[in-house]
């Protein structure tokens, strides 16, 4: 076999390995996924139209009915709206991944001499970029209707960063969900059942103080509440949760980082493992 010769010209530039090659694969797939987001109206509206719509609806519909002590509902709501949008749009990761698996796009990737996990990393990074666009749109909409942060530029940036860190961690959990789901529709369905309560049973849109006792406990320990409280704190916006004695509400920044790290630590390896299993069945 080794002595046979073929007339085909030798394969060009195919010896590759190491971190640089992996990074290259990731960059290629990030670019590919961004094209997908840009070309699929539904996916794009998740991070463009929906944030504007949610912001206007919540501020003008709920705003009148929710009294916020040291400030306006508007100032209270923007951080929450960022988290609401980030959390619900995280589903896109699950749907996109299982779509790629069911359409056979992943099969093509898996027969190429590339780093297979680049499929997951590339998707998570592309989704991170679209998340950044999403909260930027919430912020711009907020600014247009009178929301004002009251903190140093560094602190405000830290607020954005902490929201995106959480969003990134959540996308790995959704990647794991995507790999095990039966198809895009079922991923969307299951994602909604998990993510919607996660976003709503929190301090994102209303202070938790008005909830029934048992629900308060859940809401106060919900990672979304920690991140929202942390972002409010860093933006210098009203943060009613600061008076709640639950540990995450007393240390929102630390809790937000800890939750994100925990989710990443659990779900990134899990997603990679499940993906490997799925693609070498």
């Amino acid at each position, binding site marked *: 076999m080794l002595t046979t010769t*073929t007339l085909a010209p030798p394969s060009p530039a195919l010896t590759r390995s190491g971190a640089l090659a992996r990074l290259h694969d990731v960059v290629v797939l990030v670019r590919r996924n961004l094209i997908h987001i840009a070309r699929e109206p539904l996916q794009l509206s998740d991070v463009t139209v929906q944030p504007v719509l949610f912001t206007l609806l919540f501020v003008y519909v709920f705003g009148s009915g929710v009294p916020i002590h040291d400030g306006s509902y508007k100032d209270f709501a923007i951080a929450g709206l960022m988290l609401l949008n980030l959390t619900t749009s995280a589903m896109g990761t699950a749907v996109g991944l299982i779509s790629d698996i069911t359409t056979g796009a992943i099969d093509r990737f898996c027969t190429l001499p590339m780093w297979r996990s680049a499929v997951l990393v590339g998707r998570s990074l592309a989704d991170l970029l679209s998340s950044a666009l999403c909260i930027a749109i919430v912020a711009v909409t907020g600014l247009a209707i009178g929301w004002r942060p009251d903190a140093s530029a560094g602190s405000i940036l830290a607020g954005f960063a902490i929201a995106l860190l959480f969003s990134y961690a959540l996308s790995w959990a959704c990647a794991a969900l995507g790999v095990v789901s039966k198809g895009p529709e079922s991923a969307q369905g299951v994602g909604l059942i998990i993510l919607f309560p996660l976003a709503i049973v929190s301090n994102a849109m209303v202070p938790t103080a008005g909830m029934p006792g048992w629900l308060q406990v859940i809401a106060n320990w919900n990672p979304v509440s920690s991140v929202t409280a942390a972002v409010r704190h860093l933006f210098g916006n009203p943060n009613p949760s600061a008076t709640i004695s639950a540990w995450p509400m007393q240390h929102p920044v630390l809790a937000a980082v800890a939750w994100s790290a925990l989710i990443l630590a659990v779900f990134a390896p899990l997603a990679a493992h499940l993906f490997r299993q799925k693609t070498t069945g």
Partner: protein
Amino acid sequence: MIEADSLTKSFGATKALAGVSFSVPAGSILGMLGPNGAGKTTAVRILTTLAIPDDGQAKVAGHDVVAEAAAVRRSIGVTAQDATIDEALTGRQNLVMVGELSGLKRKAAKSRAAELLTRFDLLEAADRVTKGYSGGMRRRLDLAASLVTRPSVLFLDEPTTGLDPTSRLLMWQVIRGLVSEGTTILLTTQYLEEADELADRIVVIDHGTVIAEGTAAELKRQIGGARLSVTLAEPHPRAVAALTGLVDGDVQVSQDGRRLQAAVRSTSGLGTTVVRALDANGVVVDDVEVRPPSLDDVFFSLTGHGALDLEGETCDLQVLEGVS
């Protein structure tokens, strides 16, 4: 270039492959023939590192498909049964992406993409999103994608299924061209005609095992010199008995009882003899045909059922007196 040795693979209770062995010498085409669900795609998935066999082993371009999967991936091109092109990308973007993920620099990937788009007559549609491509264009793009790295071994899983005749002929032309350049090809197909046209050797797979192997001519020789096919005006109980003395082996009868087939030695006056014999038994004949055996006949006599479960009368035929 491709060597499969006793590959087995089960999915739950279903045994997709029950010990499949074959080999494809460098620079040749092996046609893998079998009905839907015979195990063709599973075999291809194992050889292209998309699945791991339960047992047995395989080498592609000298590398073990499990232990040296990465090396295998560097040597192969794959055109899957469902075209795996990216619908949100343009044709060009698809090819550039595959090139880059195969380790080409962006510039090299771009020039290779342009080359392939020209060769596969896709230049005009190159910068359109592939969602709007026709079936034939998709297949061509998919094949182009599998050729980006100039692989020495190519896997084509039913490359012409669902294509119109013109696109199919075009695809055949391309495949012949690749072989003349020295590429080793494993081609799976449900179309006997396709295997007959393209393949140097053929393996016939059914229920996860290889049931025959050889060149198209060898396989045809296995089932005798010619095929007699008789169509009756209406089913008749004595029709089979009337033919039995005139043919080699069994007479196969279609489910509606009107079509009879059998292997025969083609002799002068055979048609007349057949019609007289049937007529003497009171059987009314609509049509008599004596023709060389097709791979369809081979497939039928090997498996007892037709190649395509959905297509035409071959699947309705039943072996009356058992396979000899």
